[in-house]
């Protein structure tokens, strides 16, 4: 095989722990109660349309996008709205959520539940964008940027390459991997749909080499689709980062402070591509997603198809319960995910995994003196000098931080992962960013 593509600067190779890569996606079933947050995306929270006591079905619009950068929120279950008020989220902070008691499993009649694959795309670009908007689709890789905004490229910019991101470089997570194995053709059609919006014929599905089944499944499908190709990439974290992936695939760099479109690229996660297929071809709003429930303290790791709003505790119980070894419950991956305070918090459009990590795996060792090993500058995929940023933040020299390009930090955590002195380098970078943004 020829040399695998990868990004040139920095990066790390953490242990993979892809325990669930062979586990087929299972239906998680219906919980008794779901909590659906009205803000599961970047931008303004959606405006609530329902009230206490309303009956809803699967796919009923619960909250309407408030402005351009926002997204619709749909019901993922059928039942009765119990309350429309603030509920404790994963961090223990209260967020506006719609609480629904599940009764039966009745779908809105517009949703096409047939399992046959629709291959012809009879819609125009405007119709496709409208359908994506109505389905409330956001970037499901974790950023949560509303997809209609992302795919509407300003007229002064030209995109020539669509990259479908099937890298999933976080340890443990296999949701995208399994989706590619089981829904390869739908993802490829999703890519064709996005291509139609962009008016181009060139899509690359990037998959890293530690997913041989996904590479095989998708490659088999792309043979019959002109313009969609698979590119196998080297396994390296954070290859799935948008900018890193663009550089890996095209060799281009997104200029500092600019968008991928400035490098002629659009990147969409495979989960998003699948959701776009379902929204456009099957009229299905985004009300479920694939979630990996795993971790070294998890008894029965698995991949589940989960209705949005399902409490994490429901999934944890399915996977064998909260074991005594569990020290942290992570929403997302171990590198960039968040440690949950409240495990009754719901799965959102952005939750790719629920991980139960033991003390041994997730322990943060005590901080020592910096030994100036320079490993943080070596692994930073953005070319920052995290040790220097940490020093300036500690000294309160926020004015000097602008020259350190800290606003370009992608918060991948390579620096903090690598630091032999266990300095919380990422925390310093995040602090620096928030201080600079205040000014």
């Amino acid at each position, binding site marked *: 095989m020829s040399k695998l593509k990868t990004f040139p*600067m920095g990066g*790390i190779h*953490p*242990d993979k722990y892809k325990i669930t890569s062979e586990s087929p996606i299972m239906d998680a079933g219906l919980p008794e109660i779901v909590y659906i947050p009205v803000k599961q995306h970047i931008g303004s929270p959606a405006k609530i349309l329902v009230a206490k006591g309303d009956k809803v079905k699967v796919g009923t619009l619960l909250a309407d996008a408030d402005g351009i950068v926002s997204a619709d929120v749909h019901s993922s279950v059928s039942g009765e709205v119990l309350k429309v008020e603030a509920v404790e989220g994963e961090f223990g902070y209260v967020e506006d959520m719609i609480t629904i008691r599940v009764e039966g499993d009745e779908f809105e009649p517009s949703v096409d539940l047939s399992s046959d694959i629709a291959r012809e795309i009879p819609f125009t670009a405007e119709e496709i964008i409208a359908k994506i908007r109505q389905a409330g689709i956001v970037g499901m890789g974790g950023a949560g940027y509303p997809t209609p905004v992302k795919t509407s490229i300003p007229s002064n910019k030209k995109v020539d390459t669509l990259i479908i991101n099937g890298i999933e470089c976080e*340890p443990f997570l296999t949701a995208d991997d399994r989706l590619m194995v089981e829904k390869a053709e739908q993802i490829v059609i999703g890519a064709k749909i996005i291509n139609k919006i962009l008016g181009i014929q060139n899509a690359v599905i990037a998959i890293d080499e530690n997913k041989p089944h996904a590479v095989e499944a998708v490659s088999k499908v792309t043979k019959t689709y002109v313009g969609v190709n698979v590119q196998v990439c080297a396994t390296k974290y954070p290859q799935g980062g948008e*900018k890193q992936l663009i*550089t890996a695939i095209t060799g281009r*760099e*997104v*200029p*500092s402070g*600019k968008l991928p479109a400035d490098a002629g690229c659009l990147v969409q996660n495979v989960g998003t591509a699948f959701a776009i297929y379902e929204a456009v071809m099957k009229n299905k709003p985004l009300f479920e997603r694939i979630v990996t429930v795993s971790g070294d303290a998890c008894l029965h790791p698995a991949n589940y198809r989960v209705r949005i709003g399902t409490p994490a505790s429901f999934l944890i119980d399915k996977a064998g319960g909260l074991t005594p070894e*569990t*020290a*942290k*419950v*992570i929403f997302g991956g*171990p*590198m*960039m*995910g968040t*440690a*949950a*305070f409240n495990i009754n918090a719901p799965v959102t459009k952005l939750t790719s995994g629920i991980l139960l*990590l033991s003390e041994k*795996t*997730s322990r*943060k*060792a005590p901080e*020592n*003196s*910096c*030994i*100036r*090993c*320079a490993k943080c*500058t*070596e692994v*930073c*995929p*953005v*070319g*920052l*000098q995290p*040790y*220097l940023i940490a020093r300036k933040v500690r000294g309160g020299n926020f004015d000097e931080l602008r020259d350190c*390009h800290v606003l*370009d930090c992608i*918060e991948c*955590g390579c620096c*903090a*992962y*690598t630091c*032999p*002195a*266990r300095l*919380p380098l*990422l*925390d310093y970078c*995040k602090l620096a960013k928030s201080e600079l943004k205040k000014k």
Partner: protein
Amino acid sequence: MLKISTAPHFQTTRDTRSIMLDVVIALMPAALAAVLFFGINALLVIFTSVAGCVLFEYLACRYWLKTRNTTTDFSAVITGLLLAYNLPSSMPVWMTLVGCFMAIIVAKTCYGGLGKNIFNPALVGRVFLFISFPVQMTSWPQPHLARFWETDAQTGATTLGILKHLDAETSATALQGKLPGYWDMFAGNIGGCLGEVSALALLIGLFYLLWRRVITWHIPFYYVSTVFLITAVLWLSTGDPRYDPLTHLFSGGLLLGAFFMATDYATSPMNKKGQVIFAVGCGILTVAIRLWSAYPEGVSFAILIMNAFVPLIDKYVAPRFYGSRR
């Protein structure tokens, strides 16, 4: 009760201690070579130096810095080993201890301890001893292969010492028999400091460090090649045996310095570009001191001088950041 913390929730198992331990392991072949060529005296110097450095480190942490005891992370062991490797095997115990004091207390603790020192502690110790006790520091017992208990070896000049005192007129033939052969220089069967004699042992250590990713190849490569290139150009253009590049490569402290002391984390630059500047600077200074100063050996001074430039290099040389390409 669940724990919460900021991301990342994963950390490498590689910590300061495991890195330092790897450096200690990488230094072991040179210790073996030293004992092989200089016998029990070498062992005594190494033991004294390591014990002295660890003791001073412990006392400094306990009574002065009042911080966590850092002797368990092996950094003082490395300083002790490197200091010993820079001494002749006939070094009296008390002088070695003075060197340990200079290294750990003056060069390291005064600046705030681990990672905060500007100058390489072992080299500060060595240079202090070199200036204070020039006689003891320049009487070089000749190697006596595999005679462990022999302690009264004859002393003689080092290879670089012989070259230094050559007259310009001395012909190459007069040198025959005076200079050791390349193989003896490579294996270490020559007079000199404990750790510097065996290029072979140092190379084994270097490959271990590279394999374990403790250091990258940049500083050793650029340092050694700079010295090699400059001497090669001079040698080819004049034919003077004093400039023989292979002799400069395998004699004196060049390899020990380039592999283990210029690569010291605390006292070398924090990014690749800076490290290349630093290493080339070390190489130029080493050649300049060896060839045109009163001293036959220049590695210690070269590295210490370049150490002083490290904060400046770090200030002005930054890695290219993503998105700066237009």
